[in-house]
């Protein structure tokens, strides 16, 4: 019974940490600009 309780507490804590990281963690939308682009003829003048 004690082991089950400890396991449930551990799972709960893990879920809590995961939720905090999910909300506050870095990441988000990848860059929407930049990358490779073809040079226009004007840039070769």
């Amino acid at each position, binding site marked *: 019974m004690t082991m089950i309780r400890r396991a449930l507490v551990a799972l709960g804590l893990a879920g809590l940490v995961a939720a905090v990281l999910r909300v506050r963690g870095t990441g988000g939308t990848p860059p929407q600009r*930049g*990358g*490779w*682009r*073809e*040079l226009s*003829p004007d*840039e*070769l*003048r």
Partner: protein
Amino acid sequence: MHVAVVGLGAVGTRAARQLASTDAVERVTLYETLEGRVAEVSSSLGAKAHAGAGAPEVLADVDVVLLATPCGSHLGLAGDLVARGIPVVSTSDDVDEVRSLLDLGPEAEARGIAVAVGAAFSPGLTCLLARLAADRLDRVDEIHVARLGTGGPACARQHHDSLGGVGLDWRDGGWQRRAAGSGRELSWFPDPIGAADCYRAALPDPLLLVPAFPGVGRVTARLAATRRDRLTAQLPMLRPPHPEGGLGAIRVEVRGRSQDGIAVEILGAMDRPGVAGGAVAALAAVELGAGRARHAGASGLATLVEVRPFLRELARRGVKVAAFG
């Protein structure tokens, strides 16, 4: 203009086709040791193309000769042609041969002709991109070149050999010899190629870039390779090279200073190396044949041609340059 093309492999054939479609070129004379190849190519190129009679060394009334034979065979012929005062475009990317071709510089200069060394995809287009990127900066500190892909079978053999050779890095005013296959860097090539691991290899780009950019602190060149490429580099090629590789790419990163401080310019191009190399070689031949070389002597394309008009014409022919950032 009369242009002779010696060697009708993946690059030479494309170069001959580009020349035959150039208004300024009136005659293209073709040389190839492989039986039947000259007739096959000349019949597909139209009235401007002719089979060369005799050896290319004795070719008369030619304005420029484009050498596109496998690496290791350019020096003797180039020496003969320079001695006769005929401009030469070489597509060789063998380090020793490029060094020897550059040594023809004083004689070419004395005769008032130009020798374009390493005028294909890489080196060649890489030298042009380095110049274009450098022109956007006030001072150039470092140039780093990376290349992916091969053209025809001779190019594939050269790719194999270069991974078993010694890489040349220019660092703080001196050459450093480093083992090929070392120095892994992840390079991002223009789409759709994407990222590839690149390694030091016996590549001639630094030999051409260092004299073109006096005062540059570091110049390196790397080659994209797979684990199998590196593992088998010291062995003979385990299977015959393919007739033509797939898409290839180059990436040129120039670091330096602009008025805003430290700046990095990254340019690249993506195409079949044989196609792009042929177009670059053909355009270089047209420039030299028309007497538009910026100076006499032997050098890479970074100093030999006007870069912007050259790249505009190259783009018109389908080889386009991309910038990162």
